[in-house]
C-alpha cells in the first residue's frame, strides 16, 4: 500500500485560503475540550507554544522533553532573529514579499499555500511575543528595531541581542509554566519518547522512558503532536545541541508516517572551524556578522601558511564579492557555504586542517571604528575569543560551514498532520515551508506559527471530526509497542561489545559529511549506501553500553539515538541519490550550470519526495507530492 499524500490545501485565492479554512474547519465546543487529551512531544518554540495554547483553549495536555527543564530546548540557541512582514522600516516589505523570498530562498521546493500562511501569521507572532514580555531590541524612540539577514533585501528581522531564540523560548516556556501551574499541562522533563502508539491506524499515544528511573511506560491520548526538532546530529558534528535526535520522528516513520525530503540539509557558512578530533560540536557565529565582515582566502596556495597580516591586499581572493557582486558577502547560506568548500578543496583553506576561510573585520573597523563593531557584535566576538583564544578585533576570524538545519522531516498536510491520522508534526521536525533551503530567521518564525496559530485550529478540526474508540494500557497495540521498546533497550545493553557509542557516531558523521554533505554525487552516495548498513551491523555487534536500564544512563540514551541515526543516514543518501538535480541545500555536482551554480530540474523533480517505510531490510517506497506554483513563476535562483 502507498500512503495518500492529500495536501488538503483549501481552494480559493492564495491570500484567502487560511481565513477560509479557519472558517470551514470544525470546532470543539468549550465544554468538550477538557474531555480531549493531547500529547505534545517537545518543548521548543513549536512544542511549548502549542502545549501552552492547547491548555489555554481547555484541552488536557501532557508535554515531554529530554532535558531537565522545558526551557532548555535547542530553540534556546538561536541567535540571529525572527522574520516578520511588519514593514515597520517602510522599506517595501509585505506578506507577499516575505512569501516570495521564502519560496525563492527554498529554491522552489516548498508548498505555496503553507508558505503564504506562514508569511501572514508572522505578523501576529511578534505582537504575541511582545505581549508576553520578550525584550526585543528597541530604537531610542521606543519602537521595535530590525536588522537585515541573508537572502533578503529588506530589514524584517526582529532580534533580542544575540539571544533571540532564548528570549522567544523563554516567552513560550513561561506561558507553558503558567499553564502547568493552572493544571492544564502536565510536564514530563527528562522523559524520552521511544515509540509511537498507533491503534486502528490512528496515533493514540507514545512510549516514554523516564530517564531518571528508567521505567518504560505508555502515555495515551486522543492526538499526538511531535515538535522534536531537527536531526542535524546525524552528521555527529553540527551546530545542534548534543541531545538533538531523530528518534521521535524516526520511530513514527517506522510506524507509517511518510518522511519527506530527508536529504535537504542546511550547511551554515559561518561556524567556528574544527580544532581537533576530540571536537564534540560546532559553534555557530551568527550570520549577521556577514553584514560587516569580508570573506577571503589567499589567492595562492603557497600563502595559506602565512599570517593573514602578511598577505597583501592584492594577494587576497574575496571570492563572494567576486562571484556575486550584488549580494556579495550576504549571498544565501547554501551558496556561501559551497563557495567556502570550493576554496578549501582548491587547497587555499586556512587554519588547522586547512579547513577554514577568513571573515575579516579590518575594513569595517577602519570604517566604523572598533566601538561600533563591539556594540554590534561584542558578544559574538567574545564567544569566538573564548573558544579560539584569538582576538577577532586584531586577526580575522576563521570560519567554516557546518551542518545547521534540516529542512526535511515528517511529511505533513496543510493541517500539519502526517500520513498517520492524529499524528501532527510542528517546527523543524516537519518538512513544510522551507523547501530545499531555509532563509535565516525563518525557523523561529515557523516554529511559533505552527504552535501558536496553526495547530490550535487544526487539532480541534481533527478531534471534532473523528470518533475515537477508547484505548487502555491493555489494548494489544499498546502492549506491543511497550514490549518493542523494552526488547530494543535490552538489546542495546546486551551487546556488551568493545566500541563506544561515540566512536560509531563519529564514524557515521564522517561518512555523511563526506558523501552526503555540501556537495554530493551518485558515486559517493552509492558508496555511503553500502558503508552505512555495514557500520549499523557492526554497531549492533560491538557497541558497549555500560550500566543498567533502570537508572540514569546517558550512554544508553545516546546509543538509542545513534541506532536511529544509523538508519536515517541511509534514507538521506537514498533520497539524495534519487534527486537527480541540484536545489538549495542539496547540491549534486553532476547537475550544475557552467559557472557552478545549482541546476534545478523542474520538469522531473518539482515534487516532495515522501518516503514510506516498507519493513526491515526492504528499500522504502517513494511517494511524490507534486508542487504546483500558481502564484509564482519558477526561475533560476540568482544572487549575482
Amino acid at each position: 500500500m502507498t500512503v495518500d499524500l492529500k495536501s488538503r490545501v483549501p481552494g480559493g485565492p492564495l491570500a484567502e485560503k487560511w481565513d477560509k479554512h479557519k472558517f470551514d474547519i470544525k470546532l470543539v465546543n468549550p465544554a468538550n475540550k477538557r474531555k480531549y487529551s493531547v500529547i505534545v512531544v517537545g518543548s521548543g518554540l513549536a512544542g511549548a507554544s502549542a502545549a501552552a495554547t492547547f491548555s489555554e483553549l481547555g484541552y488536557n495536555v501532557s508535554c515531554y522533553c529530554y532535558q531537565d527543564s522545558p526551557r532548555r530546548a535547542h530553540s534556546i540557541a538561536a541567535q540571529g532573529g525572527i522574520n516578520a512582514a511588519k514593514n515597520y522600516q517602510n522599506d517595501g516589505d509585505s506578506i507577499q514579499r516575505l512569501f516570495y523570498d521564502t519560496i525563492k530562498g527554498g529554491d522552489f521546493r516548498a508548498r505555496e499555500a503553507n508558505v503564504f500562511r506562514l508569511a501572514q501569521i508572522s505578523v501576529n507572532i511578534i505582537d504575541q511575543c511582545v505581549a508576553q514580555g520578550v525584550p526585543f531590541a528597541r530604537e531610542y524612540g521606543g519602537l521595535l528595531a530590525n536588522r537585515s539577514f541573508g537572502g533578503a533585501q529588506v530589514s524584517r528581522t526582529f532580534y533580542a541581542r544575540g539571544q533571540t531564540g532564548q528570549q522567544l523560548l523563554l516567552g513560550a516556556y513561561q506561558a507553558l509554566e503558567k499553564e502547568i501551574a493552572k493544571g492544564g499541562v502536565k510536564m514530563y522533563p527528562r522523559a524520552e519518547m521511544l515509540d509511537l502508539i498507533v491503534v486502528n491506524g490512528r496515533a493514540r499515544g507514545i512510549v516514554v522512558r523516564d530517564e531518571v528511573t528508567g521505567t518504560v511506560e505508555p502515555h495515551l491520548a486522543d492526538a499526538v503532536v511531535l515538535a522534536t526538532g531537527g536531526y542535524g546530529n546525524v552528521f555527529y558534528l553540527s551546530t545542534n545541541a548534543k541531545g538533538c535526535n531523530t528518534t521521535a520522528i524516526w520511530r513514527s516513520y517506522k510506524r507509517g508516517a511518510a518522511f519527506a525530503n530527508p536529504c535537504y540539509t542546511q550547511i551554515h557558512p559561518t561556524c567556528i572551524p574544527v580544532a581537533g578530533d576530540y571536537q564534540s560540536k560546532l559553534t555557530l557565529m551568527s550570520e549577521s556578522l556577514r553584514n560587516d565582515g569580508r570573506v577571503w582566502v589567499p589567492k595562492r596556495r603557497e600563502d595559506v601558511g602565512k599570517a593573514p597580516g602578511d598577505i597583501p591586499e592584492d594577494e587576497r581572493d574575496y571570492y563572494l564579492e567576486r562571484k556575486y557582486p550584488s549580494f556579495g558577502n550576504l549571498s544565501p547560506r547554501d551558496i556561501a557555504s559551497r563557495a567556502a568548500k570550493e576554496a578549501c578543496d582548491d587547497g587555499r583553506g586556512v587554519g588547522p586542517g586547512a579547513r577554514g576561510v577568513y571573515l575579516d573585520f579590518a575594513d569595517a573597523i577602519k570604517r566604523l571604528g572598533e566601538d561600533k563593531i563591539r556594540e554590534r557584535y561584542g558578544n559574538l566576538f567574545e564567544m569566538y575569543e573564548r573558544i579560539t583564544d584569538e582576538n577577532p578585533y586584531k586577526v580575522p576570524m576563521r570560519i567554516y560551514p557546518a551542518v545547521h538545519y534540516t529542512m526535511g522531516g515528517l511529511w505533513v498536510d496543510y493541517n500539519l498532520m502526517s500520513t498517520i491520522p492524529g499524528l501532527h508534526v510542528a517546527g523543524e521536525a516537519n518538512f513544510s515551508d522551507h523547501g530545499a533551503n531555509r532563509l535565516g530567521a525563518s525557523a523561529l518564525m515557523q516554529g511559533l506559527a505552527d504552535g501558536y496559530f496553526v495547530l490550535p485550529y487544526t487539532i480541534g478540526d481533527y478531534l471534532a471530526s473523528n470518533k475515537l474508540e477508547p484505548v487502555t494500557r491493555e489494548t494489544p497495540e499498546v502492549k506491543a509497542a511497550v514490549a518493542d521498546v523494552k526488547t530494543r533497550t535490552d538489546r542495546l545493553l546486551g551487546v556488551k561489545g568493545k566500541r563506544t557509542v561515540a566512536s560509531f557516531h563519529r564514524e557515521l558523521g564522517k561518512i555523511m559529511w563526506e558523501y552526503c554533505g555540501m556537495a554530493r554525487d551518485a558515486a559517493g552516495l552509492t558508496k555511503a549506501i553500502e558503508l552505512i548498513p555495514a557500520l549499523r551491523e557492526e554497531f549492533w555487534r560491538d557497541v558497549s553500553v555500560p550500566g543498567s536500564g533502570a537508572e540514569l544512563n546517558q550512554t544508553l540514551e545516546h546509543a538509542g539515538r545513534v541506532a536511529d541515526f544509523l538508519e536515517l543516514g541511509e534514507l538521506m543518501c537514498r533520497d539524495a541519490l534519487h534527486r537527480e538535480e541540484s536545489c538549495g541545500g542539496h547540491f549534486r555536482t553532476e547537475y550544475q550550470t557552467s559557472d557552478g551554480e545549482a541546476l534545478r530540474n523542474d520538469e522531473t523533480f518539482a515534487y516532495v519526495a515522501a518516503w514510506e517505510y516498507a519493513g526491515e531490510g526492504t528499500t522504502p517506497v517513494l511517494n511524490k507530492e507534486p508542487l504546483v506554483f500558481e502564484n509564482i513563476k519558477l526561475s533560476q535562483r540568482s544572487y549575482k
Partner: protein
Amino acid sequence: MNLTLKVWRQSGPNSAGTLTEYAATDVSPEMSFLEMLDVVNERLIEQGEVPIAFDHDCREGICGSCGMMINGVAHGPMKATATCQLHMRSFTDGDTVVIEPWRARAFPVIKDLVVDRGALDRIIQAGGYISVSTGGAKDGNTIPIPKTDADSSMDAAACIGCGACVAACPNASASLFTGAKISHLGLLPQGQPERYRRALRMVAQMDLESFGGCTLFGECQEACPKEISIDVISRMNRDYMFAAVSAVDEPVGGADG
C-alpha cells in the same frame, strides 16, 4: 597536558557518594572542559566502567544544562563563562581538579554531577510570566518602550537558569535567579499589572523550596555566566516589601496557592 581529576561519583539519588580519582592524560588546551570529560568517559567505557554522568546539551553557554563546581568555583575559573564554554587552557599541566555537583537541599543529586533543578521551574510557575493567552495581542509597537528599559530588562532576561548562583551562594540562596526574572518582567510596561502579585508568589515559592536567604555575599553575581547583577535582588526585595505591605494578593501558597 596531564591532570588529576577528583570527581564526585554517586550511583543514585539515595546512595552514598565519594570523590574518585581519575587521570586525564594528554589533554589538549584547545579542548573544552566537557570535551575533556568526554575523553575520560570514553576511556572508562572502553574499560567497561560506568562513565561520569553530567548534564549538558547546547555546549554554547546558553541552555543552562551544564554546571559543576570546579575546584570550589561554580562553572570554574573563567569569569562569565558556563562550564561548557570553559577551555582547558585555563588549567596547567599537573593540576588536580576537584569536580563536584551543585550542592543545595533544593537541588538533590540524581547521579554523579547531575542534580534536579526542578525547584527553579516551580519558582517560575509561581508567577514568572505575564498572563496573556495566545491571540488578541495588540500591535507590537502600540506600547513604545524606552530603549534603556528594554536593555536593562534584557540584561536580567539573559539568565539561563543554570543554578550556579545557588551553588556558589554560601547560603544556597536562589535570590539572583528569582530576582532576575522579577526584574526582567517588572522593568517592562507589559509586566506591571502582575508586578507585585508576581513578587509575592515567586518569593513564597522560593522559600517553600527551602533555599537559603540572601545576606549579600555577592558570590552569585561572580559565578553567574551571564553576569546578572545583584541589583536584581534589591529590586526583588523592594517589590516584595511593597507587595507585602499593600497586601495585593490572596493568601500566598506558592505555585498552587
